[in-house]
């Protein structure tokens, strides 16, 4: 199932505790999966089994990106499933070192 992603879109996993928020997204429709199942809107209900082949896990606070970093997703709650976009696993983006300004 492909959905439109835009900054601020929140999604949750159907098969684990994972929750995410889209930080940035290029225009278009994407299939976003976690743990082998399509991700859901925050108010949707879903059930299913975690695919053991897609169980690398997500970590709270980490940013996940596709190869060209046109899509960036923030994990707001960690879980057991791995994030996959259009069939390709998302990678953890290296944290930026920013001076604290406030």
């Amino acid at each position, binding site marked *: 199932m492909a959905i439109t992603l835009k900054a*601020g879109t929140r999604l949750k996993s159907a098969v684990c505790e994972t929750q995410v928020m889209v*930080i940035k997204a290029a225009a278009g429709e994407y299939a976003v999966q976690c743990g082998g199942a399509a991700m859901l809107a925050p108010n949707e209900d879903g059930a299913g089994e975690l695919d053991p082949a897609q169980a690398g896990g997500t970590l709270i606070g980490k940013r996940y990106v596709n190869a060209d970093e046109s899509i960036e997703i923030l994990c707001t*709650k960690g879980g057991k499933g791995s994030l996959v976009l259009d069939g390709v696993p998302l990678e953890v983006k290296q944290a930026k070192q*920013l*001076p*604290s*300004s406030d």
Partner: protein
Amino acid sequence: MNIAMILDMAADSFPERTALQCGDDRFSYSELRVAARALARHVRAAGAAHLALLDVNSPAAPIAIFAAAYAGVAYAPLNYRLTPEEINELVARIAPACIIAGPEHLARFDGRDELSVIARDTVLAMRTASDAEAPSLGEDPRAVAVLLFTSGTTGKPKAAILRHENLLSYIVGTVEFAAADEQDAIAVAVPPYHIAGISAVLSSTYACRRMVQLENFDAAAWLAACREHRVSNAFLVPTMLSRVVEYLLAADARPDLGSLRAIAYGGGKMPQSTIESAMRLFDGVDFTNAYGLTETSSTVAVLGPDEHRMAITSEDPQVRRRLSSVGRATGAVEIQVRDEAGVELPPESLGLVFVRGPQVSGEYDSLGSQLDSGGWFPTRDRGYLDADGYLYLDGRADDVIVRGGENISPGEIEDVLLTHPAVADAAVVAIPDEQWGEAVAAAVVLKPGTRVAEQELQDLVRERLRSSRVPQAILFKSELPYNDLGKVLRRVIRQDIARTGALGAAI
């Protein structure tokens, strides 16, 4: 999309870590969330549209920021230094509302229908509330998170609107989640009604960095608190840093703060001599200059620690002058300088500063959005960029004196007046003039025990600049009026000058 997510992430990850300290009191992230959710239930039950705060810094401020987000209402911190009449006026603008007040502020406004008053201690006690089930968060990114009344130095306070999408873009764009170590702590001395007070809570909570709250700013107390709480980071407005520097120089003392690693400053013009002294006194500490506005959800440009060190040690005047810049645009926004007609200017050309990005709200209650069709916000600050993108500010557009069609910046005249050995402080303002439309006037504070004739200062300006810059009236004062964050109140100075009738003949 909701800024309460920031607290949820911190409380889920580090429930027992200390979130904030204020005097002898401390809150863990878990306690902070329990209290915020309890307050949110109270606000919802009261049917309020706003959650206001009239108080100095205390744990009630962060509790209220997140409680408003959980409850789906806007948080509206009010300036506790306003008069009762001014406070009543603001309260009328935000009713129906709940208002949290500290003990010394409870009697400073009138009771009214549609206003539910909560004492600060009642809010603090909510940490022991039974935390039933998690509230369902409002997801509308356009919902208003914060309503901030601007200082009103030029007139009636405007209410700047900051939406959840603005604030969350700012945080996610500039802070890494849980970037702080458990022993890290930031000293927060700015009052809760200032944008820096709001962004400090959001940034620190997202970084999971302990906040040490100071009720009021005092140099000695600030140094003592930094020492006692082993503070690693601090944010100060320039006047606060000036006072710390003056205190240390007067006492011929070193800061003696082994744990302090970084000082960020912003919120006004930093005198070059102050930052240079501060860098000498706080040897080894990282300094960051942050430029931002209420309407831009805080910081849009940053001069980082390495840039400070490079500038102060450089022989190259182009690099050295960067210490007087506010740095470059953060990765989260773009900055442009334009002329009066709206055309983008090349480097080194003085014009009006514009900012664009998702964190930029540029919106006021009742006035609506001030963004142009391209999404750019006119900051009303004047400045120029250099070829490397460093931004140099030159005062507010509203303070520019238009004398016979010529634009005159108060800053350049003030800088010249301040070079006179007897001048301690100076502010230049416009006064009405029949012939020129506006004319230049100055208020000057002399150093103790000195005397200078008006003519001598006028000659100094004529010599360094040109005759159109010469103040035609100079009012000598024992001190200049400032607001509590160190912004000089030009409106008050204009009134003073008009009242004394200190108007010479046109020069």
